[in-house]
């Protein structure tokens, strides 16, 4: 469904992506792991068109993402941002129903609010949260609202950018479970980037290890522990010694 072929991206002299090749089959959950600053977020943003790759192709269902109707393309996606990226000036329900209140998916206000409250309930939040402002919520609740917004328009493809960063282990577990449940029940294709190994084991069908701007290893999550790949092995066990240089 999503295919990246020889994708390169540099910011000045910093070559972040140096020929990424990756295939995410339809209806599967792919988790990209890798150290900080290895280009995981950039790869995700390249697919969405938020960052333009310098070279290479990115296809969704065989269609080049740079061609065709951009609104229709983006309407297929939902995204949970690392910090939630909720709009401060709007109450929670309007954040969740943002896409349903404008553009091609526009619904009457009452219906959009109803859907928003339903999605909030789906991520474990009570309806009384709907009229609060994002600043009034805890970090975990903001993540859940972000998740509700990502699934509000029932997208075919959902991206999760560091979904558990900054959360305590229990809340991380809750978010991981929610993501797994939602992806399964919606039949969506999911791409998640994280360096939290508990997230990887909870969310992934397949795993890809990004290092030095290329995919070092990719395969089913069940094969991850016995991959024999020294980079992956070092990363999943959190060892300081190995082929990945640890800056001290």
């Amino acid at each position: 469904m999503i295919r990246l072929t020889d994708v390169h991206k540099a910011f000045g002299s910093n070559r972040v992506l140096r020929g990424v090749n990756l295939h995410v089959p339809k209806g599967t959950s792919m988790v990209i792991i890798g150290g900080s600053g290895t280009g995981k977020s950039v790869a995700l943003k390249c697919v969405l068109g938020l960052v333009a790759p310098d070279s290479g192709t990115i296809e969704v269902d065989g269609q080049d993402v740079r061609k065709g109707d951009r609104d229709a393309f983006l309407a297929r996606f939902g995204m949970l941002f690392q910090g939630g990226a909720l709009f401060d000036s709007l109450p929670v329900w309007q954040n969740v129903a943002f896409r349903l209140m404008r553009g091609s998916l526009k619904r009457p206000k009452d219906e959009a609010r109803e859907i928003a409250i339903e999605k909030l309930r789906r991520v474990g939040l009570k309806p009384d949260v709907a009229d609060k402002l994002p600043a009034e919520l805890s970090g975990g609740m903001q993540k859940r609202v972000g998740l509700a917004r990502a699934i509000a328009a029932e997208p075919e493809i959902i991206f999760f950018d560091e979904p558990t960063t900054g959360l305590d282990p229990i809340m991380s577990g809750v978010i991981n479970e929610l993501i797994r449940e939602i992806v399964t029940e919606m039949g969506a294709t999911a791409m998640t980037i994280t360096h939290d190994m508990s997230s990887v084991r909870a969310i992934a069908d397949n795993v890809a290890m990004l290092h030095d701007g290329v995919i070092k290893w990719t395969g089913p999550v069940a094969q991850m522990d016995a991959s024999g790949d020294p980079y992956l092995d070092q990363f999943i066990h959190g060892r300081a010694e190995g082929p990945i240089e640890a800056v001290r």
Partner: protein
Amino acid sequence: MILSSPLAALGRSTLALLAALGRFVIFTAQTISHLARPPFYPREFGHALMQIGYFSLPVVGLTALFTGGALALQIYAGSARFSAEAVVPQIVAIGMVRELGPVLVGLMIAARVTSSIAAEIATMKVTEQIDALVTLSTHPMKYLTLPRVLAATLVMPMLVGVGDVIGIYGGFLVGTERLGFNATTYLKNTADFLEMRDIVSSLAKGAVFGFIAALMGCYYGMNSARGAMGVGRATKGSVVAAAILILAANFILTEAFFSA
């Protein structure tokens, strides 16, 4: 080698300046081009009208009131040297309407509105809210820039008009209460001396200054660097650029309206 280094630095600065100018021109053209392309966001436009127009009234009113009063005192003191104290109403009116009203309102809006727009949009950029807008099929320039720029351009002439009236009233208060002018004569002299051209130039300056103030806030916000320092720099840069451009535009518009 000794000479090439400063020359290279000069070349780099010039190229960077031209690139920045090019980015700004493209940004301005894109903003204007969205005027003719739906969708439009009336709620955002209404919100911007309130924020830029209605909530700026107190600061505009107080600035104009004190400036008009001080202007009357200064003109009275200066004209007394030539026994020409009677010109106070006329000079206050012309000074406020042609210059001080639009320029001071423009600068106050640059301080209050440009900084607020730049800080808000820069924070949205840093916290990925701009990226979130894109993923939600909403063009950030349509949703954030156009409503603010359009609202500021339309509401600023009204603010300048209010500022002009309050500034003249400040001069009137000082003139009648402190300097001994007759109220009816003061008002008659003010009204008789002002021409339609003065009022039109004042309102036109307001529209241009409003456009500049909002555009600079949006431009610096959208191009902010990451982190708190990036937001701070964007805010400071936007206010400085808006103030300088407003003063430069004021000179050009004054030349255009009154040079003949």
